């Protein structure tokens, strides 16, 4: 049933474009995410029929329609359990989940943390534009405190979730962050996400041109981005800045931004990124860094290979099936106390 033909998969990005007209607003960050994903899939040696793109509701969740793979457009907030069912039913599939800050963190918050807790092999791409776009501009669980929207005409009075903190707090093994139109970084991140085994969460800093334009301006515009972001790569020192003259160090159990040459700091004081460190302490702090005190961390912040839910289920099935005397329904029906008349 789920047999696939083995073939050499010489795909190009175009092979992953569906015949549906892309309906996002011109200039929307989602176009960048779509292009990047199509490019990355074409580079992987996986038959196309093994991909499933699952989504909830919102602008992000239209993406499966534009991918020429198997796709399932679910209901609001429920992409994670749908994806979970797909992965359990057929662990050979590579399951991607497209979601947004409203879909994953408000109505779907419960499912989001439980998917992460189980560590089921699902790749969650979370488009974070800090606003509800499809319902035309209400604040979301990631909107900055004080944001004026249609449902917060006097500014929000709620603290936002930080997706990385939430993910790692829910015992997430993989968390990465990228920017919608930074295609080079996105390709790198999505590729690592694809190859990771377990629940992977990627926060994509995404711009809604209509309802929250410029929300991420400080980390995306050419003038300020290099001073406001830190691109993390495993094994590389945490150096950033337009002039590559700043870095991150650990002092008094806190992360600290240092400038080389000031107060006696040099490059040697800078932390080296270890994405594979199981202890979540530093990853949690890195994921939580935010302006103006810290640069925003991009790249793969945490990547821990652990036993996945789907692997554990397979192992348990093998073990029970070897041990059990019941091999068919007929045998089950006759098990236990029976009598003849």
């Amino acid at each position, binding site marked *: 049933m789920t047999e696939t033909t083995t073939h050499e998969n010489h795909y190009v990005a175009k092979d992953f474009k569906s015949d549906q007209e892309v309906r996002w607003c011109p200039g929307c960050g989602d176009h960048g995410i779509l292009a990047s994903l199509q490019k990355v899939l074409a580079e992987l040696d996986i038959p196309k*029929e093994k991909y499933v793109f699952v989504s909830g*509701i919102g602008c992000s969740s239209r993406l499966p329609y534009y991918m020429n793979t*198997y796709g399932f457009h679910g209901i609001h907030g*429920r992409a994670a359990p749908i994806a979970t*069912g797909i992965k359990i*039913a*057929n662990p050979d599939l590579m399951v991607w989940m497209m979601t947004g800050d409203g879909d994953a963190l408000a109505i779907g918050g419960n499912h989001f943390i439980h998917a992460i807790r189980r560590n089921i092999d699902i790749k969650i791409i979370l488009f974070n534009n800090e606003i509800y776009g499809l319902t035309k501009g209400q604040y979301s669980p990631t909107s900055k405190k004080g944001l004026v929207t249609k449902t917060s005409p006097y500014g929000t009075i709620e603290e936002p979730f930080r997706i990385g903190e939430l993910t790692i707090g829910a015992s997430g093994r993989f968390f990465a962050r990228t920017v919608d139109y930074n295609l080079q970084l996105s390709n790198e991140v999505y590729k690592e996400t694809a190859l990771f085994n377990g629940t992977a969460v990627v926060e994509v800093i995404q711009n809604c041109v209509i309802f929250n334009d410029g929300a991420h301006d400080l980390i995306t515009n050419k003038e300020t981005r290099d001073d406001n972001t830190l691109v993390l790569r495993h094994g590389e020192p945490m150096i950033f800045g337009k002039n590559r003259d700043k870095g991150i160090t650990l002092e008094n159990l806190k992360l600290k931004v240092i400038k080389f040459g000031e107060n006696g700091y040099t490059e040697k004081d800078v932390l080296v990124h270890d994405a594979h460190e199981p202890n979540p302490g530093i990853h949690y702090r890195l994921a939580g860094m935010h302006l103006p005190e810290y640069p925003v961390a991009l790249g793969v912040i945490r990547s821990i290979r652990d036993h996945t839910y789907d692997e554990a289920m397979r192992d348990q099935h093998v073990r029970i099936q070897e041990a059990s005397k019941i091999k068919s*329904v007929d045998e089950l*029906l006759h098990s236990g106390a029976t*009598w003849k008349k």
Partner: protein
Amino acid sequence: MEKRLKVIEKDDVVVRFSGDSGDGMQLTGTLFSTTSALFGHDISTFPDYPSEIRAPQGTVGGVSGFQVHIGHKQVNTPGDYADVLVAMNPAAVRANARYLAKGSTIIYDSDSFTEKQILRAGYKSDPFIEDKLDGMHLIAAPITTLVKEVLKDTELDPKSILRTKNMFALGMVYWLFDSKLKYTEDFIEEKFGKKPLMAEANSKVLRAGYYYAETIQAIAPSYRVSPANIEKGTYRNINGNQATSWGLLAAAEKAGLKLFIGSYPITPATGILEELALRKDLGAKSLQAEDEIAGICSAIGASFAGSLAVTSTSGPGFALKSEALNLAVMTELPLVVINVQRGGPSTGLPTKTEQADLWQALYGRNGESPVVVMAAGTPSDCFHYAFRAAKIAIEYMTPVVLLTDSYLANGSEPWKIPSMSDMPSIKVPWAEKTETEYLPYERDPVKHSRKWAVPGMAGLEHRIGGLEKTIRGSVSYTPENHEYMVKIRNEKVEAVVAEVPDLKVTGADNGDLLVIGWGSSHGHVVTAVTELQEEGYNVSAVNFNYIRPLPKNTAQVFEGFKKLVVCELNLGQFANYLRIKHQKFTYHQYNKVQGLPFTVKEIKEYCIKLLEEK
């Protein structure tokens, strides 16, 4: 065998075990049932317990009961009134006084009839006089004292010693019925295999109870019920939740699919998730989801990926699943949703039975949302209807709601084990790669079902979801397309009528009154009508297991009768549904919403009254 002084020969006897919710009455009842079934009686059981795990001791609200009806003839209900009551405390007497037959036997633990306990149960002085039970055969057994005496040399702690009281009572009942102790002794050995002290104590107390009853036999009648004359075959005891689970496993095996269940624990449906979680040996995959919504959504995902997908729940959980159930309607994926109904609304009566989720199943969703609705009639035929629900879901690519209820889920009866080779085949409508493009919503001309292409099948990649689609699976808001799709989804569910067997009438095809039940009303309706027929009334019965669509011959059956009455445990949901579907008939209603099943007696009384009315 010792000579017995007074033996009552009966066709059937109803026994009720009753005590505090921690007294082990459910276990005691189950052991007695199985022993009776192994002897060859037909049986029907009904547990009745509070939702609190340990409700306040000694109060009427904390009483846990288990009723067993054993018979020489076919037994269709757990019985209206108990012939034998085992009462572990005064509250058990208070809770059951009105469910006792005339001349019944009450075995009670006289040690627990202290002044304090009597007051706590709401009595002022003597419970048996206050409830006018002094004419019954009262057997006062100082069970607590006797158990302590029997186990005085054991090293068990006092709490564990008292926990064996139920075995003493059970031993006494076994003597009353001249039953063998072997099954229970084997059970004790298996259950307490790792705790030899407990095993020994329980066996010792069981035997002590038996011998005590023998010693005092002069004051109590004992009962003889000959084995039932039932169809040849291999039998087992089965309850509704187990039968439902096994029916689903049978369907998966027959269809060549993996079974997936995504559910969230909820009384009284949890047994289904628990049973299927055990069945990894048969490849069943189970997910205890984070909530009801995740339960059904994971099942929808598994269905999209090619499993026979199931979610099980009860009323409040079914409400939470409504939106997702519509996603399965829209994506036209096979899905079996089991609602083990309980008393509602809201949290309602979690452990009690009711049939009040029928409208919820039929109508409780946004938009035009047709689903197949079925209802099982007895604990064991949950197997059959779960199998049929899965078969219809797969072959018609549709969600199917199967209604059972607390009464069926927890009730048990002997069941003739079917052979898988006798079960009907299930044909999975797989899509295949052809020269032409796969269109997700292209339909079978007769069934109107679409073809099932699942991830992993090369060349059949497609996208579906909750938005309205064209035949190609493209999102479409075109007015004509939407109307076409709404109608065709409806026609598909109506086409399921081809799978629905004709109604079978119990009794003559014509008469003064047709008594109509649905789902679990079956046993009480059929028993009441059979007794009325024996008494010379011109009455017949039908019981509906297919609600949507209804059997083809429904109107034809109704036409044969002067009067129709619909009996159901709600305020008339099925009666009103019939008023919509078959408008030319007048429907009387007999309704009960007490969290309890019908009694045969009350149905009969209502029918006689109706027959006497002009």
